[in-house]
């Protein structure tokens, strides 16, 4: 579950990004100042990239640009090495490889039954019915909601609807899955169980980009973090970015307990200078007792 086992890779020579935005500029209203300009970001294959920042800081806008749901005023988005052309064909090519799951599941659920809804994306990819059927079954299995296959969508709970929408994206077999606030509205147990599912997806090769307000969550799960507030405040390994109290404050976030406790423990010599920060309160307690 924790990202500890993945972390060492971030220090190595970075592989070619699977998805990248270069010098992106965007504004919703042409008469007003853009949400951001000259924003660049790289997503490495197999990683979890957390995007953090205050409301209105541009998180959702960036995710939508990367998924082809908005067209940048300038700059380029590249997927698997080739730049996206902003015509219908180019955008559809991008959407085949990059799937965006919105925060509100009701924005993406349109069908009355779960199986019908999940089949929508694969059918749009032009797959034959038999392949679609097996994709749907696999996606439901992957999300742990096989038993909901025959359920009507309007009788599902919020958490279940979130999973159905995720299954709809997963069934399209994207290289990159972008999730806007996937844990919003879930209780802590729901968050844990969703994280386990997402971790399973990542293990089977999906790269994840996740926006969140939860610094602690990003800290223990993601490899790299992008701090956004109208522009990039910082981007790099979570320990560097989220461990920097000034950066975190500039992004109007609450500092994570882990780095703060780690810093304090190191300063009193209870933690080696190169050891990772504790990820939970229990780890702090163990170090103290030790």
């Amino acid at each position, binding site marked *: 579950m924790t990202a500890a086992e993945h972390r060492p890779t971030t220090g190595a020579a970075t592989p070619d990004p699977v998805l990248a935005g270069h010098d992106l500029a965007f504004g919703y209203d042409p008469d007003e100042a853009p949400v951001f300009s000259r924003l660049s970001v790289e997503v490495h294959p197999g990683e979890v990239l957390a995007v953090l920042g205050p409301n209105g800081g541009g998180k959702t806008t960036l995710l*939508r640009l990367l*998924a*082809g*749901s908005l067209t940048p005023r300038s700059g380029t988005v590249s997927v698997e090495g080739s730049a996206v052309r902003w015509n219908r064909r180019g955008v*559809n090519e991008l*959407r*085949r490889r990059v*799937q*965006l799951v*919105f925060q*509100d599941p*009701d*924005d*993406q*659920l*349109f*069908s*009355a*039954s779960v*199986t*019908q*809804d999940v*089949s*929508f*994306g694969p*059918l*749009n*990819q032009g797959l034959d*019915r038999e392949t*679609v*059927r097996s994709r*749907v079954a696999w996606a439901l299995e992957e999300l742990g909601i096989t038993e909901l296959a*025959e*359920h*009507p*969508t*309007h*009788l599902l709970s919020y958490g279940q609807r979130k999973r159905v929408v995720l299954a*709809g*994206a997963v069934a*399209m077999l994207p290289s990159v899955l972008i999730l806007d606030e996937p844990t919003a509205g879930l209780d802590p147990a729901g968050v844990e169980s969703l994280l386990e599912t997402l971790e399973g997806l990542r293990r089977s090769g999906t790269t994840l980009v996740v926006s969140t307000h939860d610094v602690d969550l990003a800290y223990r799960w993601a490899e790299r973090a992008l701090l956004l507030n109208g522009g990039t405040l910082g981007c790099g390994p979570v320990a560097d970015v989220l461990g920097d109290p000034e950066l975190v404050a500039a992004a109007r976030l609450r500092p994570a307990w882990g780095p703060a406790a780690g810093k304090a423990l190191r300063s009193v010599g209870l933690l080696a200078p190169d050891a990772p920060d504790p990820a939970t309160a229990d780890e702090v307690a163990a170090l103290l007792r030790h």
Partner: protein
Amino acid sequence: MLAIDAAAYRSPWRRTHPAVKGALCGGLLVCALSLPVWPGAALTTVAALGLAFGPARVNPRTFARVAAPALVFILTGAATLLVSVGGESAPVAWDPHGWHRALEISGRASAALWCQLLFAFTTPLAELLPRLSRIGVPSALVEVVALIYRMVFVTLDTAHRIGTGQAGRLGYASRRAWIRSVGSLGGTLFLRSYDRAQRMQRGLECRGYTGELTVLLEEIPLRWRALSAAAAVPLTVAAATLCYGVLL
């Protein structure tokens, strides 16, 4: 949220092909409307209610609650037949034949109502609507109708929450406040619906939407044996009624 809808998804007949239920309930409906009320409507009532509370396991309390408004309509409507107006003796008078007509019409209509409810309580719309395109309804219309069905629940939910919020702020405490509340609720719902459509547009585009809402339809096999068994029920009712007419 909607009692019939929730019950239809729990129905043991949910997996039966809609055509089978259509043959059963439609056939009974034809019996109720076209056969002599006695014993046609009575036999239809027995068949429809027996199937509903027997094999279809419909909850009688829910059934009664849902049927009540329609029954009230039938009874008030029938009650008007008891009087006659504009006669020569008095402006309003009892119609001597009124009882007979009122009884006939309420017997017929209530029998028909049970057939309608039997179908509604066992057939989720989600499994009925997509099949409409197979009987020649334009696919664009079928897609819009299926969307309406999905969005009805989202909108009902919104309406319910806003209504609860208004009630919490005493929005239904007086008639005046009530009218003000319903008005602003209706307006807000329209704006939300519009907004919802736009957001769904964006959300579905990410899933490759280019104008067609094609989905995989779960196949329900149409069994001829089930279809003939379903058709046998109204045929039996019809035969019994006709025999009764001939014999007496």
